[in-house]
């Protein structure tokens, strides 16, 4: 369903609030069908909020955005799809494990996609978020050095 909407109706994402409405309806559906997923997303949020300099907000295309120094380094959609910004080298090495995929839209970028299917996936998602956070922090520090 999510893939179908993103592929076929993705061009509508710039209509104000439409993507956020879609994500809210996914959240409603998950609350009914798979409420534990929303707890896992909360766990990710709390994990990111413990990282110094981060903020958690609304993602412009629906979901929760994770930012470092005001710049987004990851976001999670309410169906459990976590999109994380790494770099191409790190992405290549992590893809060898077979746990992560290319970003569902931007295949040839440093972005990766990872689905939360079960409780164990939360730990791996936290590991990936830590990598993305470290990268964002290093990048920020290199700008100031």
């Amino acid at each position, binding site marked *: 369903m999510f893939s179908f909407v993103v592929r076929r109706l993705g061009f509508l994402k710039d209509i104000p*609030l439409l993507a*956020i*409405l879609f994500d809210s*309806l996914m*959240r*409603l559906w998950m*609350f009914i069908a798979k409420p534990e997923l*929303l707890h896992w997303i909360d766990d990710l949020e709390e994990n990111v909020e413990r990282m110094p300099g981060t903020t*958690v*907000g609304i993602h412009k295309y629906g979901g929760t955005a994770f930012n470092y120094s005001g710049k987004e380094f990851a976001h999670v959609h309410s169906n459990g799809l976590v999109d994380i910004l790494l770099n191409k080298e790190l992405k290549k090495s992590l893809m060898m494990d077979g746990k992560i995929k290319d970003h569902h839209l931007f295949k040839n970028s440093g972005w990766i996609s990872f689905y939360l299917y079960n409780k164990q996936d939360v730990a791996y998602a936290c590991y990936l978020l830590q990598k993305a956070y470290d990268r964002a922090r290093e990048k920020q520090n290199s700008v100031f050095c």
Partner: protein
Amino acid sequence: MSLKQTFYKVRSSKIVQGILIANIFAFLIIGMQSSLLPKDVGVLVFSEFVIIPLLMGIIMAWCWKDTSMRGTLITACSILGSLMAILLSFIFLGEGIICLLIVSPLIFGFVIAGAFIGRSMFKKSNQKLNISIVSLLLGIFIVDSLSDHHHENMVSDEILIHASPAQVWQHVVAFDPISQKENYWLFNIGMPSPMATTVSEHKLGANRKCIFSNGYIFDEKIVKFDVNENLVFDIIDQPKDPEIMGHIDIKRGQFILKDNGNGTTTLIGNSWYNLHVFPTWYYDLWAESITRNVHFRVMEHIKLLSER
């Protein structure tokens, strides 16, 4: 703990306060809108389904800002707040159950969205930005409420019938009761479906009645009567049903019979309606779907009778 203590604890709970304040706000603003900006009965503008639910969510988030609620709990409480709004609409605004079922995705979606937008807003503690956002939403609400709203649409469907136009025409002007089982989910849960049509005379200007499954009758007048070719009728009176109640006006219906020259006829059914609920990008999807299913229920029946 005594019942009284439990009551005070619930009343003083931030969660309950958020839900109650948001709902009171919504009904106050709708009440003010109805009394200060009178509009036609049944007309519901897009702000009532988009801006008010968003503001309800933001108000809830404001009440919950010091509670460190997790996203799951925010979702649950937003759903509860939405359910309360829907229940109050049923009780005080007299909306029908199917009407509320249709509107509920917008209410749930925008209340949840508002609650999460609000959570982000109040985390930043940027009062100027927060006031700007709320003022902008209220501004849109006022402008939208003052604007004229008009939407007319036509739905057209066709079906191939293995019978001549003369055979089909006999069942177009009026037809015996439909006995086939309903196969559209809204008809199955109680939305009235067309059952039979009667006509006073087979000529121009005659009165036609379309009878629905719950006994409601649409009074129609034949305004074009080209035998074996074209039947047009205007709807002159429609039932005061809580599911319709000014939200949609069916204006006109038409049956066109096209002779395919091979013993078959293409029957085209057209309906024109005015929609009084907005946003049309949402409600027109429903109106079209319902009209289409009314068409097919009638036209499948005409096909069955004609091919018998």
